[in-house]
Each structure stands twice: as C-alpha cells, then as structure tokens.
C-alpha cells in the first residue's frame, strides 16, 4: 500500500509539472476540523456545479473523512487505481483529482457543452421520426438503445486520436452481424493512427483504405432510425463523440438509394419513389453524355423532328456541344456550391441571379441552346433525388467521365463507359460484401422454395 502511495505522491508532483502553464488549473485544499482533501482540476472542462454539489458540499456535511472516502469511491464514474498517463488523460477530459487519506481518486465532473436534440437537416423526410443524432455520444446511444431494446445489441468502445482522444462506439446486433465484417473492422480500427479525429467522414476514409475509390462504401447518416434499421439488418454502426453523424457499414450501392420514407409509404408508392430515384440517377449520369452524342456524333439516332429541334436551338452556338455542356455544367456546379456556402439570407438571391437571369441571358446571347438549359436543370434537380449526400456527390463527379467519353467517342464511348461502370460496380466490395448485383433475384429464388 505504502509503495503505491509513494508512487501516487510522486505522481501528484509529476502531474502538476505536466500541467504547468495551464492558466485554468485549479489546485485547492479543503480543510475541515475532521480532515482535509486536495482538489486538482482544470476549470474549463470540469463542471463547477457538479463539483460543488457532489464533492464539496458532502465533504462539509458528512463530517467524517472515512465516510466521505467511501462516498466518493463508490460514486458511479469514479476512478481509483490509475497510472500517471491515465491520470493526465482523466484530468484533461474533465475529471477532478481528489486527494484524501493519502490516496487519490478521480471524480467524474465532465462538463459537456452540447446542443440539444435537433431535427434532421441533411436527410429530412416528410413523415416519420425527425430527430437527428446529436454531438454527444451518450445522448446518441440513448436514442439508439431506446429504439433497439434488445440484449443482442452489443457495444464496444475505444478511443481514437492521439490528441483529440475521440470516443468511438461500435454497435452491432450479435445475432445478425457478419463476424468477418466485424473482425475486419476491428483490425482496421486498431491499426488506426491519427492525431485528430473530428468527423465521421474522416473515420470512414481511414477505414476504407483505397484512395482512388469514387463511391462511398459506408453510409454516413444523421438519422437514428436509419442506424437502428441497419442494425436490424445485421450491419455495424460506428458512433463518434463530438459529431452528429454515424457510420453504417457494410453498405451496398442499393442502400444509398433507400430513404427512410420508403418503409412508411404504401408499398407501391415506395417502389415508385425508388424507381424515380433510379431514373433520376440515370438521367443525371447520362443526359449530358447523350446530348453530346446526339449533337456531335449521331444525330440520326433520334427522330428527325427532335434532331432538328436540337440543332435549331443550337444554331447560334459558336462552339461544339461538348464545350457548351461543360460550360453550363460548370456554371451549375458553381451555383450549387455557392448557394451552399452563402449565408442563409443571401442564398436564394444567388440561385435566382444564377439560375434565372444567367440561364435566360445565356440563351438570349446565343452562347448556349435553350434545350441545353432544360437539360442542365434536369441534371441538377435529378441529382438531388439521391437521399444520401455522399452518394449524390459521387454521382455528380461521375457524370463527367461519361461526358468525356461521349465527347471523344460518341455512342461507342457512352456504351463502353456504361459497361465499364457496371463492371466496376460489380467488382467493388464493401467489407467483403458484394457492392452491386441483382439482389432481388436471390429473394426470388427463395420464394420459389430455394430452387437455386
């Protein structure tokens, strides 16, 4: 015992030495007739109210140092036996070091500055739950546990980030999860070495190593109901402290086109909405490429009336259709980006100025054809049909590949690219799971009595 105390005594000096230069370090000694305690904490991360209510007031009320010692050590969240490094860590995270009877213990008085539960902003739906995950992991876990009340929901926690010390929780339903996925994830998380980890997107990037990939392999969502729904499908959710987003993996291509509305709607309506999204993706990916093909290479593909209409609208345009499309698409991208960054009050102005006036003026000046404007807005709007932001960004980038292929090779280029894209999708794996194939055919076989 005495050896350990010695070590702690040394450690107190050592701790003070380590925290030298902390202006908000508080070092106090409370003295009462029956004994005294040493208090050491960092004011900015520790909660003063918890301190006075749960630590200082009981000390003076109890009037017995041993009873107080018992009270403190049995308080939930109090840590006793620790190493020097751990002591520093605890102090930095908001614990209060209490020195009584020559022993030390750490009292949990973390001060969390968080905003309350807000409504979803990036993935809003018309009906159904509207709470979003918060920036506090405890509240998030509460929201998920409340929706998934099962003993099978297991949780592992770990701390990632040498400086940021971000708490990470891995949740899964042990009866449904694929153990291979879990093993691969654990291995990746354990080998992770970063200083600062602040956003789920960063973590997502670290655990899926391929730097050239264009498609997201795991969903980053702010909806607790989506997390719960995916947990029930045997997926793994990763929650991060200090961000209001969760990662769900493994995720396949299809998952990114599922909105939480689909479950709520009538089945046929849900299917229709999904179909709309698929058509939207096809449009946003291929319309620019098809336009270039039709105007520059193979106008004979479409009806002669349509071909004449398009070339009529392009009569004044002084450059090839590829330049025209690229110009307008870039304008559209600028507008989207600008309206995202602008303050909310000016946002609508930018879109009005850009979309209406610029589009109108550009056609009037003869720089782009009328049909081009319609096409660009169709591309822009259909891109927003994708419920998850990461996928919609990927699709936004991907359409340029098709555009370039069409510009170089016409119809052949487009078809080659489409086949290549399909093969690329099929070759992707998300934590060992095939990313893209006709999953519904598997179920079809099962319904017929598992013939295949």
């Amino acid at each position, binding site marked *: 015992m005495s050896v350990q105390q010695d070590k702690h005594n040394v450690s107190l000096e050592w701790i003070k030495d380590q925290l030298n230069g902390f202006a908000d370090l508080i070092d106090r000694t409370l003295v009462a007739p029956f004994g005294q305690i040493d208090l050491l904490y960092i004011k900015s991360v520790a909660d003063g109210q918890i301190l006075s209510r749960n630590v200082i007031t009981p000390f003076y009320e109890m009037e017995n140092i041993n009873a107080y010692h018992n009270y403190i050590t049995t308080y939930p969240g109090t840590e006793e036996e620790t190493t020097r490094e751990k002591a520093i860590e605890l102090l930095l995270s908001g614990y209060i070091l209490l020195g009584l009877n020559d022993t030390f213990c750490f009292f949990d008085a973390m001060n969390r500055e968080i905003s309350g539960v807000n409504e979803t902003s990036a993935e809003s739906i018309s009906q159904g739950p509207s709470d979003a995950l918060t920036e506090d992991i405890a509240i998030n876990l509460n929201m998920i546990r409340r929706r998934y009340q099962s003993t099978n929901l297991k949780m592992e926690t770990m701390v990632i980030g040498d400086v940021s010390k971000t708490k990470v929780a891995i949740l899964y339903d042990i009866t449904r999860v694929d153990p291979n996925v879990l093993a691969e994830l654990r291995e990746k998380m354990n080998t992770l070495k970063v200083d600062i980890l602040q956003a789920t997107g960063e973590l997502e990037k670290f655990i899926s190593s391929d730097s050239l990939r264009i498609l997201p392999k795991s969903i980053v969502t702010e909806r607790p109901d989506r997390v719960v729904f995916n947990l029930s499908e045997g997926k793994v959710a990763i929650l991060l402290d200090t961000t209001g987003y969760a990662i769900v993996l493994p995720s396949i291509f299809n998952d990114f086109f599922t909105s939480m509305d689909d479950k709520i709607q009538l089945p046929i309506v849900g299917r229709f909405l999904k179909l709309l999204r698929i058509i939207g993706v096809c449009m946003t990916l291929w319309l620019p490429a098809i336009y270039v093909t039709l105007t520059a290479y193979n106008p004979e593909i479409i009806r002669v009336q349509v071909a004449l209409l398009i070339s009529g609208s392009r009569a004044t345009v002084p450059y090839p259709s590829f330049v025209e499309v690229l110009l307008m698409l870039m304008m559209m991208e600028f507008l989207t980006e600008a309206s995202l960054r602008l303050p909310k009050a000016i946002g609508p102005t930018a879109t009005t100025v850009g979309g209406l006036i610029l589009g109108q003026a550009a056609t009037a000046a003869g720089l782009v054809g009328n049909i081009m404007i319609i096409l660009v807005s169709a591309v822009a709007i259909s891109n927003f049909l994708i419920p998850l932001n990461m996928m919609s960004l990927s699709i936004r980038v991907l359409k340029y590949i098709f555009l370039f292929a069409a510009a170089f090779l016409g119809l052949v280029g487009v078809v080659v690219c489409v*086949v290549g894209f*399909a093969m690329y*999708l099929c070759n992707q794996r998300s934590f060992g799971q*095939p990313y893209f194939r006709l999953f519904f055919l598997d179920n079809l076989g099962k319904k017929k009595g598992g*013939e295949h």
Partner: protein
Amino acid sequence: MAKSRYFYCLFLMNSLINIINYVPRELIDRRFAGALTSILIGTIFGTLFVYIFTVLIAKFPGKGFPEIFHSLLPKKLARTLLLLFAGLWCVAGGVTLLSFVDITLRFISPDSSPYTVVISFLVLVCICCRFDSLSILYGLEIILSVTLPLIIYGLVKALTNPDFNWDSVLQVTTYFWHKPDLMSLSAATFSFSGYLNLAIFNRVFHGLKLKHVWILGVEGLSVLLLTFLVPIGYFGTVAIDRHVYTWFSTADSIRMENFIIERMLFIFYFAYLSLSLVSVIVHWHGGLELLKGAISSVKKQSPKAERWKEWSILGLFSAMVLSLMGLDQYELNMFGAWFLQIRWFGEMFIIALLFYCYRKARRGSL
C-alpha cells in the same frame, strides 16, 4: 460461391451473341443446303454436350481447368493443353471484338478511325477481365438484365411487323430434307457453347446442379431459328445474300413509332455492344486464367510480379486483335468460319479430355 443461375447467364450470353458472331452468315449461306437440318441436329448435339460437360465438371467442385489438369495430367501435357485452350478463348473474344469494330464503323460512326474504336474496346476489356470471376458473373447478370428486355422487344417488334414475309420463311423450310454439313453444324452448335466458360468459372461454382437442361435446348433452338429465319423474312430468300451483318440490317429495317428513338438499329446496337463487350470480358478472363495456369510456377509470386504477368498476357491478346485489324471483311469472315469449326472440334476434345480426367480421378480415389 455463385448460384447456379449464373450458369444460365453464361449460356444465355453465348447463345444471344451468336447473332453477330458469323453464325447467321454461315447458316444463311447454306440455306438451301441443309442449314435447317443442321440446326436441329446441332441442337441435339449442343444440348447433349452441355449436359455431359456440366455433369462431368460438377465432379470437380470449385476447380477450373488449370487445377484439374495439373493434378491429373503430366506437367508438360497440361501446360501445352492449357496454352492451346487459352489461345482458343482469346480468339473467341477477339473474333467478337473484331466483328463489332466492323459493325460500329459500318452502322454507327463511319467517320471514326477503326483504331480509336478498337483501342477503346480493348482498354475496357483489359481492365475488366482482371476482375475476379464472381464480379464478372455479377456484371454479366446486370448487363443481361438490361439488354435482354431490349433484345426481346426487338424480336417481338421484328416478328409483328406486317411487312415480314412469312412466305420466304416457309419457302426456306421446304429445303429441310438436305443432309447437314459440317460448317453449318459447327455454326449451329456455337449457340450452345456458353457452357465452356465453366473451364474457369467452375472455380466459383460449388456443386453445380442443373435442373431442366431441356430448357437450354429449347432456348438454343429458338434463338437459332430466329437468327436464321427472321432475316430471311425481311430480305427474301435470295436477296439476303447481299448482307454481311444480316441482323443489323434487319434491325435497321424496323421502325418504332411511339418513341424518341425511331430506328430499332440503335436499341439493338446498344444491347448487342454491351452484351458483346461483356462476352469478350468473360472469354478473355477465361483465356487469361488459362494462360496463367499454363505458365504458373510452384513458388508463390509477389503481387507485383503477378500483375506484370497479367498485363503482359493481356498485351499479347491485344496485340493479336490489333494485328488482325488489317483483315478485310472477306478474310475476317473466313477467319470467323475457321474459328467456328476449330472450336467445335475443340469442344469434343475438351469433353473427351474431361471424361478421361474424371475416370483417372475416380480410379485415384478408389
């Protein structure tokens, strides 16, 4: 592990592809001399081959030809055979590719350089055939599910056309009682050769069990009859002679009234180009793996060396295609016809070889 339905995909792909792959040309050349009889006999042979081959290969679950040959045949013989088969698979893909380059130049973009087109095809195929077998099967299924409805739509449209001349079709059927000849037989059986891709793809099938093999026979027969008779219905029994790519000319004769795209040709071209690209990917994936099996060494190689090996094999394949680009249409046709015949004998040889391997394996295990 793949499900058995992917085998049907492989089969369907091959039987649909034969519409462009010199098969209708060869059959129509012999329309008055036993093509119909050959189609019937070819169907019987083809279905029989499919059945025998799948039963035999199912005895080697999860194994491709390289694994089977290396374990059961003398080393040198195994290597030589694998090399020959790799050549066969490579040519199978190359022939499809070459004919599609020609079709593209003829029907879609006469202005573009043939080398641009062929290089764009080659880039896609070379990148994609290095994927693993399972991914390629998934991709094949996706492409089939997109193109099959289009092809069926095209066929229905072709058959319901009021200008379709049933008399010509009936006239050709009167030449039924001619003895079949080798060329049309080997052309007809090509429709059934999709099963051969199991040589490599059997690696992902564990215990392939086929139900209703007769469906494959019926499917093959109907595709062959459509391939053979529909162009005759459009161009007449004699005038059909003048068309090289009979089916593309046929598709170009069909008009769609209620659609933005008016000419069937483009729908057909889109469907068939994507399907043929996938089929070339499938064939070359087979060729690549077979050749890798032929030159494989015992010791494990680094991933980088492996990659170099794959790329040099693919470079060889591409060089083969590029060197054949100089052929004119007539030579290309001859080449395709030769390929069809050699392929048929190769098929018989492969089945006999597999039977021998099966016997040897069983004797070894007893």
